[in-house]
């Protein structure tokens, strides 16, 4: 049974890219285009990891992170964003990793492997 990862990302193209790239690695990928949608999936599904974008309309990533922690204390969360400055926001410290978006996805892939092992 492949490990299940949820990507919460409001940008459709970006989401498609990450989904395809991680599926290639062998993970099973679920997607949510908003924090609210993501939270309902977290409640329904047994997930191994969440990849979370920060600046999103409706519900901001950090707020989603807080709610994930309340619901699933042990679920690993990787913040994946193009904003470096939220690293200084202590709310972001609750995540298991904080990765700046880059064309090279190897940092993200390595971190996932480190957190949950092979697919």
């Amino acid at each position, binding site marked *: 049974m492949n490990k299940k990862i949820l990507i919460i990302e409001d*940008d459709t*193209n*970006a989401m*498609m*890219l*990450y989904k*395809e*790239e991680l599926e290639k690695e062998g993970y099973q990928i679920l997607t949510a285009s908003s924090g609210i949608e993501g939270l309902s999936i977290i409640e329904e599904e047994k997930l191994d990891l969440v990849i979370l974008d920060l*600046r999103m*309309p409706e519900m901001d990533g950090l707020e989603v992170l807080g709610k994930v922690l309340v619901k699933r204390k042990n679920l690993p969360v990787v913040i994946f964003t*193009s*904003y*470096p*400055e939220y690293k200084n926001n202590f709310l972001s410290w609750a995540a298991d990793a904080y990765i*700046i*978006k*880059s*064309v*090279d*996805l190897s940092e993200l892939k390595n971190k996932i492997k480190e957190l949950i092992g092979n697919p």
Partner: protein
Amino acid sequence: MFDNNFNDFKRAIFIIHNIDKELLRSCLDIEDILHVTLTGITAGYFLGFSRAFMLLYEEDNKVLTGKKGIGPFDIEEANLIWQKIGDGIPIEKLFENGKRAELKNSRFNLSVEKIKINVEELPEEDYIKKVIKEKRIQVLYNVDKNNVKLPEQIKFLLQPSDIVISPILAESSLIGIIFADNAFHRKPITEETLLFLSLISIHTALSLEIAIKYNEIKKIQKELLEKEKFVAIGKVASFVTHEIRNPLVKIGGFSRQILETDDQDKIKRNIKIIYNEILQLEKVFDRIINLISFSEISIEEVNIYDLIKEVIEFLNDEIKEKNIEIVFDLQPIWLKGDSIQLKEVFFNIIKNAVENNKENGKIIIKGEITGKYFKITIEDTGIGISEEDLKDVVKPFFSKKKSGLGLGLTVAKEIVERHKGELMIESKINEGTKVKIFLPMEVKNE
């Protein structure tokens, strides 16, 4: 002096008129003023000195700096250069720019440009000190290069000749000093020539004073503008990196996929995505450039009434499409401001009011004088903004719309503040938004 000689009088008028005409034409450029003055002094038509140079004085550090010299350095050059700029050239060609480069690279000019004299270090008997102190022309006849009481840097340039040293004074403060001599041809310096030189010095002084002040103001203005730009850049920098990084990551990722696949459909799909991301990027750039390259506000009389009418006219299609009623309660009023930038303010706000409005909604535009300000209220009956979002709406790149970049209100607020005004937003979810713009009745340009 002209009593019995009408021709002398005519010549005097001719000289002053021609130099003045050129000074006026070159009015704000120091380099031009020096060129015109020195050409006038040396050209055979005019005063006929063989050489002339000018030092400008800096009051702050009491230093005289060599700025420009026209004339031959020594007897060998004399024939060459003198012919070129002298009698052989028609008068209207004399001041032309073509001669400039040639003159600039002459040995005489290059030597003049090296001169730097600290006036405070000069001995009392030095002629430069005398000229500054007495504020009048000094004439030295048959100068002996080795014994004349002048700084070494000046002596270096001298040839056996008579020298005239004339101060350039503006309201009795020293702007510079003109040196002129009759080296090589040794035509005697007449009283008439000295009078002309004094007159030219006065005219040059006036032109130079204005040009120097103008350059100072220009410099300060430029510095201020740079600072403001810097702040504006800092403000948007983090949003900019985000707006650029996001599309770049996608463009990079999808292009790498192309490299790794042979699936034609996927390649086509990816190229389409990449193309669209690049279009997005271009839009981001355009808007950022608009945001940070605000020109200084130009202050002119602006009729706010006309400005808003124009904006409404421009948005007419969207207004009709949603069947929005515009309630217009504004009298023509003239304020001082930048019409183009203010139009952008009203455009951004009214466009928001239209886009966020409901079908058959209303936009109410009101204007009234409150104290020193003219208050314009633009109120819509749209979807409104939540209390939480309200504090963010003027931040760059805040937008709830998929298509917008979230810069409209940022730009509007920035422009209003540049006009020393204020922009305030009130809103209630599902009831509408009210934007209040306060513009000062008088805007002073800084």
